[in-house]
């Protein structure tokens, strides 16, 4: 079988400036943060970002000037507040937002995955979203005489970035039973390329023990990398929760562009690898803390 295991650098080097990147992210939940930091390290530019609900990864990418457009349903860090760098970039026209609701996002990606020109929804009817997005959302009469729908144009991202629990070297990806956001269920099927970071590389025999937990077949995956704590500071259940201190540290300085630079230097550029990153964020004591996620603050 074709080997898909590679390094973080090599995996992210597949992405070109200007690409549309679908990113797994749900506020403070499960985002491939090591891959996100590598986008910054490799100084990617003018990326478009597709997100369900973007959190800290969107803020960091906005701060580093990596993205210039966003297609998504929301950007927020939930209890940690708004993403200030993203917000500033939008208000200053450095990022253009194509805001779509969750059902429109599902429909656009679903059409991309199924090689259909569009999928319909009845969500978002009556809102101003369609007014601002006539190229991708069109009111369409029901040919059977019922109520009209919104036709949502197929979206095919150039690449999807995903984090998962385990994989084999051939890119077969497995997830523990937990919440599967649309990121996992549809983004990789719609994207032209799929890059996955996993907590652990295992032998294929391990995957065969639970074939129902495999969420992506290896032939759909272009690169897989092993990155323990690859979702930090977002949560990755049941392995670890979000790092609330890290989020608070970010929000406490994220309106100050100078401090933002220092923050990115310290956590993105300085650590030479994931091991050094984990030491930079506090090492064992922080990792032990996020492992006890039922007591998260």
């Amino acid at each position, binding site marked *: 079988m074709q080997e898909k295991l590679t390094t973080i650098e090599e995996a992210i080097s597949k992405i070109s400036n200007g690409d549309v990147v679908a990113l797994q992210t749900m506020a403070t939940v499960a985002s491939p943060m090591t891959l996100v930091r590598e986008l910054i390290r490799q100084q990617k530019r003018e990326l478009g970002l597709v997100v369900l609900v973007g959190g800290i990864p969107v803020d960091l990418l906005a701060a580093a000037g990596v993205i210039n457009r966003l297609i998504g349903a*929301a950007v927020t860090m939930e209890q940690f507040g708004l993403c200030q760098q993203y917000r500033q970039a939008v208000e200053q026209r450095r990022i253009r937002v194509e805001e779509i609701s969750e059902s429109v996002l599902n429909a656009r990606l679903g059409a991309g995955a199924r090689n259909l020109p569009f999928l319909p929804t009845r969500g*978002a*009817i009556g809102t101003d979203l369609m007014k*601002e997005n006539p190229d991708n959302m069109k009111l369409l009469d029901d040919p059977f005489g019922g109520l009209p729908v919104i036709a949502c144009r197929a979206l095919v991202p150039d690449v999807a970035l995903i984090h998962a629990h385990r994989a084999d070297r051939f890119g077969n990806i497995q997830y523990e039973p937990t*919440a599967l956001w*649309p990121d996992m269920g549809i983004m990789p099927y719609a994207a032209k390329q799929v890059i996955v970071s996993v907590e652990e590389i295992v032998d294929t025999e391990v995957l065969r023990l639970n074939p129902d937990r495999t969420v992506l077949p290896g032939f759909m995956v272009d690169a897989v990398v092993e990155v323990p704590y690859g979702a930090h500071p977002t949560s990755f259940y049941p392995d670890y929760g979000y790092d609330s201190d890290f989020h608070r540290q970010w929000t406490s300085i994220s309106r100050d562009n100078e401090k933002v630079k220092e923050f990115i230097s310290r956590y993105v550029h300085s650590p030479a690898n994931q091991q050094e990153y984990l030491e930079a964020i506090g090492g064992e004591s922080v990792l032990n803390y996020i492992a006890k996620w039922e007591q998260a603050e």
Partner: protein
Amino acid sequence: MSLDWQNSPVTDDYSIEELLITVLADQFRNDDQATNGMGSFIPVAAFMLARKTHAPDLIWLAGTVGLEPRPERIPASTLEAPLWKDSIMYIEQYGDAWHLLFSSRWIEKFCVGAAQLDQYGNANNSIIGSDYHAPKVRLPGTAGLADLCSLGKKLYYWNLNHSSRSLVEKVDFISGAGYLEGGDARDKLGLANGPQLVVTNLAVMDFHPESKRMQLKSVHPGVTVEQVQDATGFELILPDGDVPETSKPTKAQVKLIREDIDPDEMRNK
């Protein structure tokens, strides 16, 4: 549970958050199905309170992920795994959730906050300003609100900051369809249900059955109708006769919220 919540007397010892929780809890019946989104400590407390009192069978889909969970208390996020501890079912967010949430048959009730809400119940969580692509403030975005508003759900808005900036004559952007221009505008698009109630730190409002304009339903204890009107960016319809006072929480309700449901006071965050 031996708590005699049915005969518990009302109390003056309550916070405004606790009042909102009891007003919202009262909206949920035993055969209802409800779900919560992110940053929804007050609605989650309301669901949990309803389930511990008058609506033990209220079906709760936590964070649109975990069905019938049993968290011991409200955790620090309403969109993370601790909330859906011990669920009976996980809802897969691309497949099942689409069928469940984007159909009007199931999970019909949803509580939500909005940065702006207008006199016809249209909601804005997208931008403040007049230029969509260079807004004065970029808000989080509609998330699933645009869907739930148009897909026949019943929406309950909560707002801890009743002001003419949050309750406006016309929203800068419709992120969630209320009654649009009022009257039969919503019906004409074939959209069922819609906004039911608005609960703020000052009052409770609903919508006039014909004009679909927001109308005052009750003022909270100690608040006058004038205070409410002054803090609102449009003219509220007043009921005939005196405006009722919002029912205060009972001792049992406050005790349940403080000791069982939310001892970590997430409701105050």
